[in-house]
C-alpha cells in the first residue's frame, strides 16, 4: 500500500504543536487549545531543565503515573522533548507492585505536583541514545519487563495509523482507554499528530457522564478492546442518538466473530465504519488492520499490515518463511514501529544495543487464500484480561511469593484458572491477590483444585492438558 502525498509528510508529535488552530483537549471543566498546550509544554520543559541543571537527563528515568489529565500529558510530551527517558505507569497500580517495578528498572525520578522528586541517585551510565519511553508489557501485575520505544517508533506508528484511519483536524476522540496502555497512547499520539481534539475523562462506558461528554463534545470515534464491545452491546449502542459518530476501532485482543458480525452490520446500518485492528506494545501499538469494506465477509481475520509494515509467517522450528495459505506459523513483523527491545533492569536500557529488525509476535497465524492474515493461536504463556496482558509465569511467581505453592496458571482470554492441589486451603490468599491487589473481577478467574497436575515426559507441566481439565471442570 502506498502512502498518499498528504501522509507521506513526516508526522511529528514531539515538536511545536502551536501550528494547529483548534482545541487539543477538553474535560468536563475546561478546554485547552493547541497554542495553550504548546505554552504549557514549553514551560514544563523549562522547569524540568532548570530543576535538573547540571544533571545529564539521559542518566535518569522518570516514572510517570500516567493519569488521564492535561498535566500528565504535558509531562509526557515535555520529557520526551527534553530527552528525559520515561516509564509510563498505571496510576491505579497498587504502590507495592509499582515500587518493585520502578526499583527493578532503576527509576530515579517521579513527579510531585509541578516539581520532580528524586527517588534514587542518577545512574552512572546513560540510556541508549534512542530510548524515549518504557512501557509495561503486563497490565498491572508489576512484572518488570518493559518495552523500550524510541521517538521514531512513536512517530512512525502514528504516521502509519493516520494513513489508514480517517483522522482529521475536525475529529474528536475520547479516552475510553488508559494512556499508559499502548492502544490508549496510540489514540492520543495520532490525534495530536493530526491536530484533532481529545476529550479527557476517567469515566467509563457504563457511566452516564461518559455518554454526556460523547454527545456534548460531538465525539466522532470510539475505541475499545473486546470488553468495551461487550459493554456497547449491552448498552445497545444502536439505540443511542450519536449524530457525530463516524467510526469505531477495536484492538487489544480477538473480538469474537459473532461480535464482529453484529457490529459490522450495525455500522453498515448507521453509516459508520468498523476498524478491527491488531497490535502489540512491542510494535508501539499497531501492526495490522482490516479495511472496513472487507470485515463483513471476513469477521475472523486481522487483515493486512499497516502502511510501511510487513508480515512474515515463519515455521516455528525451521524459521523458514511460509508463503502457502492455511499453513500455521509464527507471525513475525517488520516495520519502523518495532521496539528497541525489552528492559528488565537498568543495564538493559543502558546498553547501546542493536535495533531489533524483526518482531516475533508469539502469535500463530496463517495467510488466507485471499491474502489476509488470520490468527489461530498463541505460542507464549500469556492471556488477556479485559485487554490487559497477564504473563502467566509471572503470576505463578506472585502466587508463590504469597505462599500459595504450588500454584499453576492457565486459561484463555478473559478466563483465567489458578490451579492448586485439593489439600491447600488458599481461597482467601488467592482472592486477596487476584481481586484486591491485581483488580481482576471474580467472574474472570476461577480457583480450580486439581489432584494430579498433568506433566510431560520431561517432567514439565503439560499446560494444554491442564487447560482442558480446567475448562471441563467449569462445565460441570
Amino acid at each position, binding site marked *: 500500500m502506498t502512502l498518499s502525498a498528504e501522509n507521506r509528510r513526516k508526522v511529528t508529535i514531539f515538536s511545536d504543536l502551536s501550528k494547529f488552530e483548534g482545541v487539543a483537549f477538553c474535560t468536563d471543566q475546561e478546554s485547552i487549545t493547541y497554542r495553550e498546550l504548546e505554552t504549557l509544554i514549553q514551560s514544563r520543559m523549562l522547569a524540568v531543565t532548570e530543576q535538573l541543571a547540571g544533571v545529564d537527563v539521559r542518566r535518569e528515568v522518570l516514572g510517570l503515573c500516567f493519569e488521564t489529565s492535561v498535566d500528565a500529558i504535558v509531562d509526557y510530551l515535555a520529557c520526551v522533548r527534553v530527552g528525559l527517558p520515561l516509564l509510563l505507569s498505571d496510576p491505579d497500580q497498587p504502590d507495592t507492585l509499582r515500587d518493585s517495578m520502578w526499583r527493578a528498572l532503576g527509576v530515579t525520578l517521579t513527579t510531585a505536583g509541578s516539581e520532580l522528586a528524586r527517588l534514587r541517585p542518577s545512574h552512572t551510565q546513560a540510556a541508549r541514545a534512542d530510548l524515549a519511553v518504557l512501557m509495561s508489557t503486563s497490565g498491572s501485575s508489576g512484572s518488570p519487563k518493559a518495552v523500550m520505544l524510541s521517538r521514531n517508533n512513536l512517530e512512525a506508528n502514528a504516521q502509519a495509523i493516520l494513513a489508514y484511519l480517517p483522522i482529521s483536524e475536525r475529529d474528536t476522540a475520547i479516552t475510553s482507554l488508559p494512556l499508559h496502555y499502548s492502544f490508549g497512547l496510540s489514540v492520543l499520539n495520532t490525534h495530536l499528530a493530526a491536530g484533532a481534539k481529545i476529550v479527557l475523562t476517567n469515566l467509563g*462506558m*457504563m*457511566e452516564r457522564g461518559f455518554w454526556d461528554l460523547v454527545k456534548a463534545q460531538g465525539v466522532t470515534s470510539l475505541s475499545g478492546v473486546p470488553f468495551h464491545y461487550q459493554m456497547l452491546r449491552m448498552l445497545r449502542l444502536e439505540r*443511542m442518538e450519536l449524530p457525530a459518530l463516524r467510526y469505531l476501532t477495536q484492538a487489544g485482543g480477538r473480538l469474537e466473530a459473532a461480535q464482529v458480525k453484529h457490529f459490522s452490520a450495525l455500522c453498515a446500518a448507521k453509516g459508520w465504519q468498523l476498524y478491527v485492528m491488531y497490535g502489540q506494545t512491542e510494535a508501539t501499538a499497531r501492526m495490522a488492520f482490516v479495511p472496513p469494506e472487507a470485515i463483513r465477509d471476513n469477521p475472523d481475520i486481522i487483515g493486512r499490515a499497516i502502511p510501511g509494515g510487513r508480515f512474515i509467517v515463519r515455521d516455528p522450528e525451521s524459521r523458514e518463511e511460509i508463503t502457502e495459505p492455511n499453513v500455521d506459523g509464527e507471525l513475525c513483523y517488520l516495520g519502523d514501529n518495532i521496539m528497541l527491545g525489552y528492559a528488565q533492569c537498568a543495564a538493559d536500557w543502558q546498553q547501546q544495543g542493536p535495533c531489533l529488525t524483526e518482531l516475533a509476535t508469539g502469535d500463530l497465524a496463517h495467510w488466507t487464500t485471499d491474502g489476509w492474515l488470520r490468527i489461530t493461536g498463541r505460542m507464549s504463556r500469556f492471556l488477556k484480561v479485559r485487554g490487559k496482558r497477564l504473563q502467566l509465569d509471572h503470576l505463578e511467581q506472585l502466587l508463590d511469593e504469597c505462599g500459595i505453592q504450588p500454584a499453576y496458571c492457565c486459561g484463555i482470554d478473559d478466563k483465567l484458572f489458578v490451579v492448586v492441589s485439593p489439600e491447600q486451603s488458599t481461597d482467601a490468599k488467592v482472592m486477596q491477590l487476584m*481481586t484486591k491487589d491485581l483488580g481482576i473481577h*471474580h467472574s474472570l478467574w476461577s480457583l480450580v483444585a486439581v489432584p494430579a497436575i498433568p506433566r510431560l515426559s520431561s517432567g514439565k507441566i503439560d499446560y494444554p492438558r491442564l487447560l482442558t481439565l480446567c475448562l471441563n471442570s467449569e462445565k460441570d
Partner: protein
Amino acid sequence: MATDQVTAAFAKSLGLPESDITEHLAYGSIKEWDSTAHMVLIAELEDVFDVMLDTDDIIDMSSVAKAREILRKYDIKC
C-alpha cells in the same frame, strides 16, 4: 423476597458479603464496583428479574437505592 434478591445480586456481582451492600453504596466509590462488575450486575439483575433494562437505566444505576428505584419502574417489587 424481592428485597433480598437485589442485595444478593449486588453481593454476587461485586464479590462482597451481603452485609456490605448498603443503600448508599455507589458506582466507583469502591474498587469492587467498576465497569466489569457493573456489566455482571446488569446481567444478573436482568436474569433474576427477567427484564431487559434500557440503556438509560443501565447507565443511571449508580447506587443500590437508585437500582431499586429503576427496577420499580419495571413493576418489580423491591
